């Protein structure tokens, strides 16, 4: 149980694309302004601002310095997390729960076209032992994980490609998505360029420029601001051991984070109780592993959910009707976008990809190689 109810009362995201042809400042300004406008409040109503970006991805030291004006954080109580925006949302939530603040603006962004994010990822490995020969990056480690998962649970490349087919086709209806492929087939996915076996161009998330912002408010304020608040009913976050020291066959920290969030939200049977899920699957196989960590199915059975269409838009438990991270991945915004997409489903604003009768939704953000850190939000309507 949280000691205060907190709701999402407004949000905005950019149209994610490879090269946005917009400065970071402009892009961040647009989503911050958009989120406030969506909530129907002004900058003066905001108590605190939490942003998410990393210096390596932004290519600048103290990258938020130049964005305080754009995001509207100047002369406000603010801070920055250096990871996915979903963690910024978690921090903003904590600030409101403490009672020190009532309304928070959360923003996350990355312009992946500026620096190759996969190259930058190699700096996040152990400098003494793992960076010397330059083999490890987020894609190569994901390939190791994917191969282990395939071997461990007898999962085929076709089954993993099924995730890409579902998500990229879903993305066709999402105006903000970058990679829209309404007629994609498993064969096309498997004939796309091979990066690190078995990771291919279409089983990895694209490099995107994009930003996302949302407004959180305490119960009293939320009721003043909107008739349609989306309540945060549960939250959980967890970090795994370093890639060398963990069981790559599962995403253990996601499981722990989800258990916490389920407990807080009073969910005992996620498969039956969740109406839609938005997962940050940076690689197609991660979505299958995600199903298992989120207790939608037993270990190793993720493939069945995709094969039988259970996680399709029309399925029993739709996952990533927006297209997920495979459709657009502006890294530090990706988890925040999942929260916004889940909230959109609850507010029935997902034109073209709306799931009928959504009362409870799950949003997931991750950071680090092989999804080392995870955060899970359970959202609910009135």
């Amino acid at each position, binding site marked *: 149980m949280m000691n205060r109810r907190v709701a999402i009362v407004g949000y905005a995201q950019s149209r994610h694309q490879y090269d946005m042809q917009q400065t970071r400042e402009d892009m961040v300004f647009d989503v911050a302004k958009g989120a406030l406008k969506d909530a129907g409040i002004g900058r003066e109503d905001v108590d605190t601002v939490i942003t998410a970006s990393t210096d390596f991805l932004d290519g600048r030291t103290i990258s938020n310095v130049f964005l305080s004006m754009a995001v509207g954080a100047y*002369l406000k109580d603010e801070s920055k*997390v250096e990871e996915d925006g979903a963690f910024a949302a978690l921090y903003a939530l904590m600030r409101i729960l403490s009672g020190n603040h009532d309304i928070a603006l959360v923003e996350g962004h990355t312009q992946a076209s500026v620096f190759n994010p996969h190259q930058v990822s190699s700096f996040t490995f152990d400098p003494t032992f793992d960076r010397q020969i330059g083999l490890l990056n987020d894609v190569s480690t994901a390939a190791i994980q994917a191969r282990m998962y395939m071997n461990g649970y007898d999962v085929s490349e076709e089954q993993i490609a099924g995730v890409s087919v579902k998500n990229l086709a879903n993305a066709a209806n999402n105006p903000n998505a970058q990679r829209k492929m309404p007629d994609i087939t498993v064969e096309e996915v498997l004939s796309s360029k091979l990066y690190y076996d078995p990771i291919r161009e279409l089983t990895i998330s694209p490099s995107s420029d994009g930003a996302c912002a949302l407004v959180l408010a305490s119960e009293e304020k939320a009721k003043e601001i909107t008739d349609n608040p989306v309540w945060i009913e549960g939250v959980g976050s967890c970090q795994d051991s370093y890639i060398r020291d963990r069981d790559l066959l599962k995403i253990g920290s996601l499981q722990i984070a989800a258990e916490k969030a389920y407990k807080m939200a009073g969910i005992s049977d996620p498969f039956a109780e969740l109406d839609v899920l938005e997962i940050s699957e940076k690689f197609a196989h991660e979505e299958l592993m995600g199903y298992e960590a989120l207790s939608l199915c037993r270990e190793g059975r993720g493939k069945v959910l995709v094969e039988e269409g259970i996680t399709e838009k029309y399925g029993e438990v739709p996952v990533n009707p927006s297209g997920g991270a495979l459709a657009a991945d502006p890294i530090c915004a990706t988890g925040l976008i999942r929260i916004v997409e889940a909230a959109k489903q609850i507010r029935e604003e997902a034109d073209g990809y709306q799931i009928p009768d959504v009362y409870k939704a799950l949003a997931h953000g991750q950071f680090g190689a092989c999804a080392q850190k995870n955060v899970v939000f359970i959202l609910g309507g009135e």
Partner: protein
Amino acid sequence: MRNVAIIGCGQTKHASRRRDVNVAEMVADAAWNAMEDAQVTPDEVDSIVDGNMQGFGGIAQAEQWMGEWIGAPGKPVLRIATGGTTGGSVAQAAYYQVASGLSDIALAVAWEKHSDSKEAGATTGLLHVALGNFFHTFNYGMDLKSLVATAAVGAAAGVAVYQARHYMHRSGCRIEHLDMVAAKDRSNAAKNKYAHLQWPNCTPDDIAKTKMIVEPFRYGHICPASDGASAVVFASEDIAKKKTDRPAWIKGLASYSDEENQMMSENSGGTGIIDASEQMACRLSAMKAYEMAGIKDPQKEIDVAEIYQPFPSQELIFAERLGLFDETTAWKATEEGETEIDGRMPLDPSGGTNATNAIGSSAMQRVLEAALQVMGKAEEHQVPKDVHNAVAHGWGGVTNYIVVTVLGDSPRR
């Protein structure tokens, strides 16, 4: 609102080059010291917040591979990085972990290992920011104003020079007073076994003999680039009362951003803060933190202050902005010995950032040192009076980020 207290502090010895440890070992040293001091085991810690200046030491997202060293696996870990204020921002995020009710015990860890990167991290940090801006202008057009503004920045020292000049101009402070501040801080540091630049009984004359680097800063005024880490354990009221007789309660806190700095403001649509010593964000942060803490007159109610002062002028500027002295009078108070360790308003009894600057950790060290004063555990540099309230300050960004934390010997009511 839940009350939160600091129940344990840990730090490492600071030096130019800690070749005896690697970065993970150094950070673990501080984290375990803090947990030992707080009498908690890693299992009891519910969540961790960590941070350093990213890019310094040539590493990124260190918590991912360093997690095992500080007991992170299986726990929520939040990484915070806000420039010079990082340590203070990390401490405040750990406070919020507990204040939110999501954790009962949170560990905050911050560090810097400058010697791992080839650049002299401490002062080139801001130069990187300036260069970032410089390259930015290539994409969107280079005008003379941007070129001059970028060239004029000259890294942290460059910014501080303008700031010091502004302050000296309007307050009447002279370079001799900067010598006094630096001498006080270096001799205070000699009483702090963890400090970097220790100079027992340093006098203003000793500082005045050092080489002039850039008006008005002499070599003896400028902070070192240190290797070191600090860690603080935060706990809820029940646990704090169980674990220790005298915790340091967090009574108020805020972290405001200023409008953009003098070099950016004109070019990027700010309102043009020409006086870098104005520091509105510090006034706002202090006002908010004092209000939360129920402090009406900081000059009377604050007993000791830990100010982030890589340059001595900043001790004076921020002491005024924190409301500890009337406008333009901090240098006079320094002259009269009021800011000495046994003075009316001791500033930086630990020696402060002027004596020890492991950037990512520096702003947390201010919180840590203020906590030690409240808990009566500062040993040789403990101020010789009862400490009921202490204020800790951090400064960062391009002169535009501020963190202020007020600590006290009794919980907030």
